[in-house]
Each structure stands twice: as C-alpha cells, then as structure tokens.
C-alpha cells in the first residue's frame, strides 16, 4: 500500500464519514440555510448560500469587515484583534476566521453586507435601465487554434489529498507534510502559503481527518496555496475569463478541470454613463470620486454577470477560484482602481502593463475570497492586454506568412506581423459596431438582426435574427449588411445619404432621412426598426477609422495589403460576418475572400486559453513584449487616409477593384 493512500473500500467509507460530518448553518435575517462540511468557515458557508458578506482582505482576518453574530452553535476561531472584548461577549466573530463545528445560527448585521445588496430592488432596476442593462447570453468565443495547443495548467488547480497521518516516525510539520504530498503529484519546487492559511492548517487537517482539497494558484512565477478545504472538492473547480471592452464586457464561466465553457454572457460596460470613449473616462477619473465610480461601474457589471452565471449553472461561488481579465490598458487600470491619468498625458505612459496576479477580492470581484485575479499583459497605453490575448488566440505570432489581426471594437486595434515581428496601431472607431450610438443598435444577442438582404427595385427586406426571434434591434454585422445592401440596390449614395425615392420604407425624421428595416408589426418592440442617415454616418466614421488605421500601418511597414496572407477579423459584433459586405462598405481591404478568418471575440478566447494554461500566459507575456506600437495620431498621412476612407467603399476606387456598385 503506497504511503498515505488507502484501499478503495476504506476510502469510500471514510468519504461517507466525511459526508456525514455536515452541519446546517442558518443565516439571519435572510433565513437561509445551507449544509456545509465541518471545518469550513462561516464566510464560505455564507458565500454558498448567496448571503454576501464584506471581505475586503479576502479572508485573511485583517480587515474586520465580515463580523457576524453567533446566535447558537459551536465554532472554533482564531483570535482577531478586530473584535473588542465587548463584541466577543455578544458573540461577534469574524466570518472568515470562524470554522464550523456544529449546526449554527448566524446573524449578519447590516454593516457587514456588501454594497450591492443595500440597494433596494427599485434602485437596482433604475441602475439597470438603459445601458445598465442585464447581461445577455452571447455566442461563445471561438479559438482559431483549438484549445489543445497549450498544456492544460489552469490559473487555479485543485488537488484532493489524503495526507498520511503523522506518527513518531514521520513527524514533519503540517505545512511540510502538505508540500510533500503536493510534490508527490506535481513537480512544484517553489511554493508559498499565506499566514492566514498556515494558521488554519493544524485545526483543519485534524477535523477533516487529513482529507483535504488544496487549491494551488499560479502567482507570478511561484505557486501559492490559495485555499485549503476539508474533504474532496477537487471536481468542483471553476474559473472565469473576461474581455473588458470600452463598450462591452463579455464573460465566460469555465470548468477548469474539463476545460468546458459553461456559459458566455455580455453586458454593456456601465462606465459608458461617464463617457463613451476612454479619454472622457480618464478625465472623469480625475473628478472627485470619479475613479471610484468608474471602478465600481466595471466591477458591478462583472459581479452581476458572475452571479448570473453561477446561479444558472448551479455552482457554488466558493468553487470559483480564479478570474482572468483581458482589457485595454485603461479598462485594466479602472478595474484595479489604479489612477489612469498618465495614459493620456504625453509621453503616454501607463502605470502598469504587466499586472501581477492579485486576489480577486482586492479588486472587489466577488468569487472565492481567496481566489486569484490575473490580467493579460498589455503593450502600451493604447494597446492593451485584449490585443495580446487576441494575437495569442489567432496564432498571429506563430505565422510564417504575413498576417493581420483587425479587432473591430470601440478602440479598433490592428496588429500586423508574423513570427518575426509584430506591430500594432489603435484607432478610435467609436462604439457603433457594438450597437451603441446608433438609433436601433444593440449587442449581438438574441433578437438582433444580423443578416439582411434587400431586393432591388421593390426594396423588399428579408432578415435573420440571432436566435430566430422577432427583431429587437440591429447588431454590428447587421449594420454592415444593411449598408452594403442599400448601396447595392441604389438606396444610398457613396457618401452614405439616402436617395430620395418614394417608398413606404423611406421617410424623413428629425435625425435626417431614414430607412425602415422592420415595421413595428413584425418587431418585438413597439416601434419600427430603422437606420437613419446619422446612423450611417456613425458607421461610416467607424469603418473609415479602422480601414485607414490598417492601411496606414501596412503603408508604414512598406507593405501592401496584397502581401498579407491571413486576415483575422475579431470583434463581438456578431456571430457571423459577411466578408463580401464588409468589403463592399470599405471596412476591410478587397482581397481574396479565402484569406479572411472571422475569429469573433478573440480577446475572450485568448483570455480563456490563458486561464486554462500557464504556458499560454507565458506566451502572452512574450507577445506583449514583442509588439511594437505605431502612434497614428502623429502620423501625418493618417488624417488623409481617414478622409479618403470616409466614403463607400473608398475615395480611391482602385483599391476595391472587385466592387461594382
């Protein structure tokens, strides 16, 4: 019998025994009851029931914000300086330090509850109106390379261990015993453990009968023992990856053991109420409480999305151990509540491009309080980790031939290169392709018109919505189709103005002339879905910014689009993109259609790869160091390129030889 291992029959019996050692914990005033294993903390029990207790320090017993009152039952708690003698007499404990040793009745006082819960449902409704919209299910991001390329080694791993009992022969300490057992399974030379965990070990090992699950986190080159739990929870190990965009936040819940994506959601970034572009937000951050508000706007959105994801998939928040974020540099600063001011001041230096792995709780993200948060490394102030993640997921940095990644977002990011070099540029494209700033725009979610055809002559419209439901609005790829079709059938001039044609679908409104895409009787909303001349102007500016950034970058490298063999198109504007139509409106260069690869939200796909593999993280790190940045704003030819691109498809028609409009 190998040391420390039991025969199966005994193990099963012992597990049954462990399962039997469960206690009921009831929280008041919520009156919620949960059954948990002996030895868990009150905080962890609270998280399992969905009772939200403050925990700024992530369960280290330092901040003293998780005070609860024990009404009945037995707990074992380490002493904490945060509790006064008077409080101790009243039965106040820190939820993160008190472990459960009998059925309990616990009262959670109002001051220990997290802020979001303090809002009344009415307040919440109000906050969630308009841009404060609920998150919606969206298509999962595809990964071009497939998930198999990187070795499976997620940011947080769980190991179930049955530690050999100490005796007079084998009397190394509890912590060393833990290390020794871990090293029998994995070759991890350097390990760290926080004091808070060490304090728990002695009691926890013995009450759990030496059967524990340890969560190991990859933290800045070393491996940390993030969490030690009683019993076997190793089959429940979940993580989240996020793409934090200026306009849209997309998140995904991943089973870290099976690598399976359980759910994908997207929501508008609530920061939009403080300005639609990053510069306005950076300026806003300097106002009183500005940084705080921006920070909360983003974490509120993320926390809410996490809540929805774990509830829908019936997952205990305690089992969500890590989160990986890709975002542009400003978004990452705001997520971490780091002053973004210097990003917009010459010489445009961010506070950090390579952010160390921290506790998610430090950033205000509610997962397991000891869970980790990591950000994909960025390149510069205006090319962030979302780009590194995108490059990683489409494999641009390994190509032999030239490739280009075009990310169609509010900040349109372009990366040109191959395995020898990578150069990036960023264009302020605006949020139109993400469905913001256009009259009937919406995210690429259920009910969005995403494909459309107009028949010439009678202008009959046939369309297709995501989820095949009645239409609610138009998403980015829907707009691309509509404009391309309107140009084709002669409804639009090349400047984007609607021709004066007498037709029931064409009418004049306050926003200029508009074309009715869907009449209200066929819609899920009580109004016609239209595209106005202002909308077209917005889309035209967005597409011009992206095309001209790409062409300026290509020109800067003394290259020609024709030399580029692979064009990766990224962006969360739809689950499909009609390449022909995108070329017809001049968003993409006119090249052989077979060279285009639509990769969807490549940033989210890259973030997921990094979440699942430490090797991918190292690769992203390497990519971020390799990418150079080309500043378009000081490039004299860029403005000229931009104005030339403000036309359908382009002022220089020779660049679009295959288009006959």
């Amino acid at each position, binding site marked *: 019998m190998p040391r420390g291992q039991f025969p199966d029959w005994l193990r099963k019996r012992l597990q049954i025994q462990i399962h039997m050692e469960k206690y009921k914990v009831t929280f008041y005033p919520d009156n919620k009851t949960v059954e948990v294993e002996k030895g868990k903390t009150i905080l962890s029990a609270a998280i399992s029931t969905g009772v939200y207790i403050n925990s700024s320090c992530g369960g280290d017993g330092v901040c003293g914000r998780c005070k609860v009152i024990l009404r009945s039952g037995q707990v074992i708690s380490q002493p904490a300086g945060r509790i006064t003698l008077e409080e101790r007499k009243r039965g106040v404990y820190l939820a993160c330090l008190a472990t459960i040793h009998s059925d309990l009745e616990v009262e959670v006082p109002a001051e220990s509850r997290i802020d979001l819960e303090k809002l009344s449902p009415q307040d919440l409704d109000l906050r969630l109106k308009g841009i404060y919209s609920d998150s919606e299910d969206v298509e999962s991001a595809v990964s071009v390379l497939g998930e198999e390329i990187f070795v499976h080694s997620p940011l947080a791993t769980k190991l179930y261990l049955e530690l050999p009992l100490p005796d007079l022969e084998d009397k190394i300490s509890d912590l060393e015993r833990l290390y020794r057992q871990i090293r029998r399974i994995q070759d991890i030379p350097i390990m760290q453990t926080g004091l808070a965990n060490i304090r728990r070990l002695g009691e926890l090992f013995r009450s759990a009968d030496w059967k524990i699950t340890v969560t190991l986190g990859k933290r800045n080159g070393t491996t940390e023992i993030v969490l030690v739990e009683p019993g076997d929870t190793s089959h429940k190990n979940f993580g989240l990856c996020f793409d934090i965009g200026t306009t849209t936040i997309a998140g995904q819940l991943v089973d870290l053991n099976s690598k399976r994506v359980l759910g994908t959601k997207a929501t508008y970034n609530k920061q939009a109420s403080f300005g639609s572009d990053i510069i306005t937000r950076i300026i806003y951050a300097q106002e009183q409480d500005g940084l705080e508000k921006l920070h909360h706007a983003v974490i509120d959105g993320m926390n809410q999305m996490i809540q929805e994801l774990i509830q829908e998939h019936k997952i205990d928040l305690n089992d969500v151990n890590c989160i990986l974020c890709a975002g542009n540099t400003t978004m990452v600063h705001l997520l971490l509540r780091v002053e973004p001011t210097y990003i917009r001041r010459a010489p445009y230096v961010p506070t950090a491009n390579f952010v160390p792995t921290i506790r998610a709780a430090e950033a205000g993200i509610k997962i397991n309080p000891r869970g980790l948060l990591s950000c994909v490394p960025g390149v510069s102030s205006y090319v962030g980790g979302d780009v590194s993640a995108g490059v990683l997921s489409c494999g641009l940095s390994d190509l032999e031939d030239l490739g280009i990644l075009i990310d169609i977002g509010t900040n349109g990011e372009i990366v040109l290169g191959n395995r020898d070099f990578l150069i990036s540029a960023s264009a302020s494209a605006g949020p139109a392709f993400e469905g913001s700033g256009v009259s009937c725009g919406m995210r690429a979610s259920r009910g969005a018109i995403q494909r459309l055809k107009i028949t010439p002559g009678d202008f009959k419209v046939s369309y297709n919505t995501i989820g095949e439901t009645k239409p609610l609005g138009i998403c980015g790829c829907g707009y691309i189709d509509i404009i391309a079709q309107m140009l084709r059938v002669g409804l639009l*001039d*090349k*400047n984007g*103005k609607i021709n004066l044609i007498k037709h029931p679908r064409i009418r004049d409104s306050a926003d200029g002339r508009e074309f009715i895409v869907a009449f209200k009787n066929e819609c899920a909303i009580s109004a016609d879905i239209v595209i106005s001349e202002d909308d077209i102007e917005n889309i035209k500016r967005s597409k011009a910014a992206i095309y001209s950034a790409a062409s300026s970058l290509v020109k800067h490298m003394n290259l020609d689009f024709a030399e580029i063999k692979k064009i990766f198109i990224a962006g969360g504007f739809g689950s499909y993109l009609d390449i022909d139509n995108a070329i017809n409106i001049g968003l993409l260069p006119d090249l052989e259609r077979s060279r285009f690869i639509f990769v969807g939200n490549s940033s989210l796909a890259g973030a997921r790869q990094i979440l699942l593999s430490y090797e991918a993280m190292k690769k992203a790190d390497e990519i971020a160091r390799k990418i150079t940045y080309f500043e378009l704003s000081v490039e004299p030819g860029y403005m000229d390129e931009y*104005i030339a691109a*403000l*036309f359908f498809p382009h*002022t220089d028609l020779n660049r679009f030889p295959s288009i006959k409009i």
Partner: protein
Amino acid sequence: MAVELMLEKWPGKVGELTLGATEQEGGSRSGVIKLGGQTTLPFLFPEGKIPYKPRLAFEIWDIAPLDWPQDLSQVYAHVFADPYLWAEKCVREYKAEILCIKLQGAHPDFGNKTPEQEAELIRGLLKRVDLPLVILGCGDRDKDNLVLPACSEAAKGERCLVGSAAQDNYKTLTAAVLADGHNIIAESPIDINIAKQLNILISDSGLPLERIVINPTIGALGYGLEYAYSIMERARLSALSGDKMVALPFICLVGQEAWRAKEARVGSQETSIIWEALTATALIQAGADLLVMRHPQAVEKVSNYIDNLWG
C-alpha cells in the same frame, strides 16, 4: 554641351469643358470658352499639350456689395444699383470674356430676393450681354436649393457654370444642371479626398465628369494660399497620373478671398491690386483654369502675365 531636358510623360489628361452655347448649339452666346484639356503641368509646353489659356471672369453682384473696400468699390460704385450696367461696364471697358454673377441678394440676411426675382435677373442678363456666364448662389444652403434651380431653368441651354454643389448638398443642383444643360461647380473645403468624393457623387447622379469644375476653396496670399496650392497641385498630379475622378478644371474665387485680406483692405490701392493679382498668378501656377476676379487692374496684370508666359 547642350542641356537635355528631362521630360515627363503623363498618362492622364484633364477633362475638357465648354462654357457657353452659341445659337447653333441652342444658346445665345457670341462664342464659347473651353477649359482644361492639359496633359501636363502649367506652362510646361515641351512636356505635353496645354490647349487653352487660364481664363479670367469678372465678378458682379445682384445687390450693392456694402463690404467691398473703398479701393475696389469706387471702380463700380456708379453701377452697383444696376447689375445690367455693371455687366456692360465689364464687357465694354474691361473687355471681359466671362461674367460671374453672384446672387448675394437672395441670402436671407441680404435682401432675401425670391427665386423668381433672381431667375428674372438671369434672363435679363443673358439678353444684355452675350458672354458665357458663371452663376454663384448666395451660400445659404436651403435658399440656394430654391434659387439656383430657378436660375438654371431661366438660363436653359446657355451652358452656364452654376455653383456651388457641396458634399452634403449636391443632389438638387445636380438634377437642375443636368436637366438644363449647364456645368456644375463642385466645392470642397481644401481637401483632395472630399473634392474627389464629390465628383464621384455628382457623376453617380448622372452628370458627366466633363461638366464638372472643381472649386478647391482657396485662401489669399498670406491667408493659406499655400494650403490651396498644395491641394491643387496634388489633385493635378493625380489627374495627370490617371485618376479621372479629379481630372477636372479648377475654378478659383480669387477676388472674394484677396479682398478679404487685411493688406488689401487697408493698404494702398496699389498693394490691394497686387494682392489680388499675386494670389491669382500663384494659383495659375498650381493649375487654376478659371479665376473669378474683381479689380480691373488686377485682371489686366494677370492677363498680361498669362500672355507673357504663353509666349
């Protein structure tokens, strides 16, 4: 040793445009004037064909121009009240070849004349003088969209040059000009791309390219002349390189810009005249085909300059 000139051979050619229609062509002008047709840069005769000289047009108004400086207005003060007399003065005294009538009086802030009144004026003018006519609107977009079609109709068949069409307002004027057989001025704000875009839009609406003249928008000497110069030069180089969409003649509103210059308003009379003349000659070097001017002495100087270079 003889110096051998390096000659450039351009593949492109500037479009040729005809201004005015004679009786045989259904109009009533005594002759026609042609613009454009170059296959090389200005005055580089050994390199290519330059079939027509740059032309000068006299600018007249339908109302008395109150803001013209003294040095300028004293020349025309006695005919300000009567556009017909003003036109005849230019023809008789200064041997004008082309007249440019600016319908400033239609502007809501400067008289607010009706489309009918302006159409009547054009009809009368065509009877009193037999030169090719350039008709300029007042600059108020909505009003011009009413006045210019009326004037276009009044001058039907005379092959006038009517303007200006802009990127966000070209459809009405293009339709009128197309119907009545005129040429159009396509105005862009010192931007080669917008100039080209507007030409594409107008030709997409059915008006052939050889009936479009580019107004690139200019600045006077000391007031951004070099910006206009470089835009015109770039456009002409593209044209000669084969880009048909910018291969069109230029019209430059020289008088309007030069007489806004501080030097022209407060300087000596000689300075003012030279200011207008120098602005014009510089633009001719950039490729201007038709220059709308104000002071007869400036016109005379520029005219001599052209003749001297034409050799």
